[in-house]
């Protein structure tokens, strides 16, 4: 019988690249990756050569070469924003199997700078295959990126469950409130961005339409960002400078790749990946004290809340209702970094979820750089869910603080 890998590994450190957000002088994926890996190694107290396993979407092999290291476990899983949750899952499984003791999971993505760099420095991502089904049967119809796809899910949610644009707007408002407590958030204040600082439901509804029913403030940012976490075995987890945050549960699943194959537009595979993670952890949604869930769009966060059992079906927006998921709110805190909506989002946001979950559960969410008073919560457990593609793929982790 294989053993349950729950608690066999921990995240023992989490860091960002030196600069994040709108980096006006420009940057590249590689700079962001390497800065984040260097920073997390320094924080944890290891050298990059101590790393036995490396995971990074489409980049693990190149990063190993660039660092001059020879890891014995390589994971290039690249399925969008949940790649990092899945890579932590994979790293835990490799550790539990005795293959490695320590791995880095890394992210670097110049989503903002790629515009000025005319696509260069983005990891060599080329044009899609013209013979891919999505090229033949989706792209002729004028959609342009994630918002133009995700909007169809919001329309269906409003039709099927009676939700309203106001319900979804509350998610953007509450998430912005968290950003006002995070000095590194792009939308922290008028000083960090002309449109920064608190917003109202009316502000969201009055912002320009991108893809009805999604307005601009229903949509995430497109920034530069790098991040990395170190995953280590239970035996070694308490031997570093920084405290462990335990991986109690992990799961992953996929419902489709192209939205053309999405069965129920108001459901995602987070139901399955969440179940797997809860089962491994021996815990359930009512025991989660923090939720870090991918908010590429307000509708993404709402549907995910339902899938993870944090609200009844069809009532995802109620998690944020009246600001109760916000600072000092009556519900569980959600997306305490300010989310992809208002903190930072480079394209694959899953790493930012992990870094903030680590900070919250290790008690370092107000370390003087990354948060001001009020951002640190008392949470000892967290559910962390990444979503990739077009509501396509999910990775869920259940994390718990060290005793």
């Amino acid at each position, binding site marked *: 019988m294989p053993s349950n890998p729950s608690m066999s590994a921990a995240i023992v450190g989490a860091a960002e690249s030196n600069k994040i957000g709108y980096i006006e002088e420009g940057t590249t994926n590689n700079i962001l990756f390497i800065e984040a890996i260097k920073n997390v190694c320094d924080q944890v107290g290891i050298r990059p050569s101590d790393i036995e396993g490396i995971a990074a979407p489409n980049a693990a092999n190149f990063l190993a070469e660039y660092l001059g290291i020879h890891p014995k476990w390589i994971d290039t899983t690249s399925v969008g924003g949940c790649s990092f949750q899945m890579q932590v899952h994979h790293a835990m499984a490799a550790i539990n199997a005795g293959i490695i003791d320590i791995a880095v999971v890394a992210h670097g993505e110049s989503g903002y700078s790629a515009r000025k760099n005319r696509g260069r420095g983005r990891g060599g991502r080329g044009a899609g295959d*013209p*013979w891919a*089904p999505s*090229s*033949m*049967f*989706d*792209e*002729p*119809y*004028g*959609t*342009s990126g994630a*918002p*133009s796809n995700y*909007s*169809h*899910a*919001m*329309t*269906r949610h409003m*039709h099927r469950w009676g939700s309203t644009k106001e319900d979804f707007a509350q998610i953007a408002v509450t998430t912005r409130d968290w950003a006002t407590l995070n000095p590194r958030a792009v939308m922290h204040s008028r000083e960090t961005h002309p449109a920064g600082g608190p917003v109202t439901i009316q502000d969201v509804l009055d912002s*320009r*339409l*991108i*893809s*009805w*029913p*999604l307005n601009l403030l229903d949509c995430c940012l497109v920034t530069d960002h790098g991040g990395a976490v170190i995953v280590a075995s239970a035996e070694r987890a308490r031997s570093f400078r920084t405290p462990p945050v335990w991986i109690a549960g992990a799961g992953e699943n996929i419902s489709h790749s*192209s*939205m*053309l*194959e999405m069965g129920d*537009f108001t459901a995602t595979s987070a139901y399955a990946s969440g179940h797997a993670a809860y089962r491994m952890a021996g815990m359930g949604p009512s025991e989660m004290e923090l939720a870090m869930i991918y908010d590429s769009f307000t509708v993404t966060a709402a549907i995910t809340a339902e899938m993870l059992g944090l609200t009844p079906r069809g009532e995802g927006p109620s998690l944020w209702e009246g600001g109760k998921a916000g600072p000092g709110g009556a519900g569980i805190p959600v997306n305490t970094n300010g989310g992809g909506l208002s903190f930072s989002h480079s394209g694959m946001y899953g790493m930012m979820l992990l870094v903030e979950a680590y900070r919250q559960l290790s008690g370092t969410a107000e370390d003087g750089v990354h948060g001001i008073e009020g951002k640190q919560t008392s949470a000892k457990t967290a559910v962390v869910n990444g979503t990739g593609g077009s509501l396509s793929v999910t990775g869920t982790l259940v994390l718990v603080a060290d005793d």
Partner: protein
Amino acid sequence: MADYNKPIPDPDPYTTGPFWDGAKQGKLVLPRCTDCNRAHFYPRIICPFCHSTAIEWFEASGEGWIHTFAVQHRAFGGWADEVPFVTAYIDLKEGDRMFTVLRGVDGNKPEEIKIGTPVKVEFEKASDEVHIPFWRVAG
């Protein structure tokens, strides 16, 4: 005919040929599994429902219903001239779904577009080789 100024699909001849051949004749030709009798879309060499590889092509009715929709206010290339335009997923009468730009609706009045409304397919000649299916709300 004015030159078609929007993205034109580059058909994969190995797995989708009959679909595009049908389109040139104004017919919606879909794949169907001869074991479980279910139609599917996009075309595959294996049935996504029962995993049989016994796939045949047949002429579908060209009828369906709006499953969900959105109004695109931002687009590129030739589509940029058309905003706000309506995109939709169509539930096919024979089962499964297609994506389209929906015709016969007003993108400035999304509240007047109803999920479940019947639609019919039509084809636009984009090049000598490629005719693209679009769906229209019956007037």
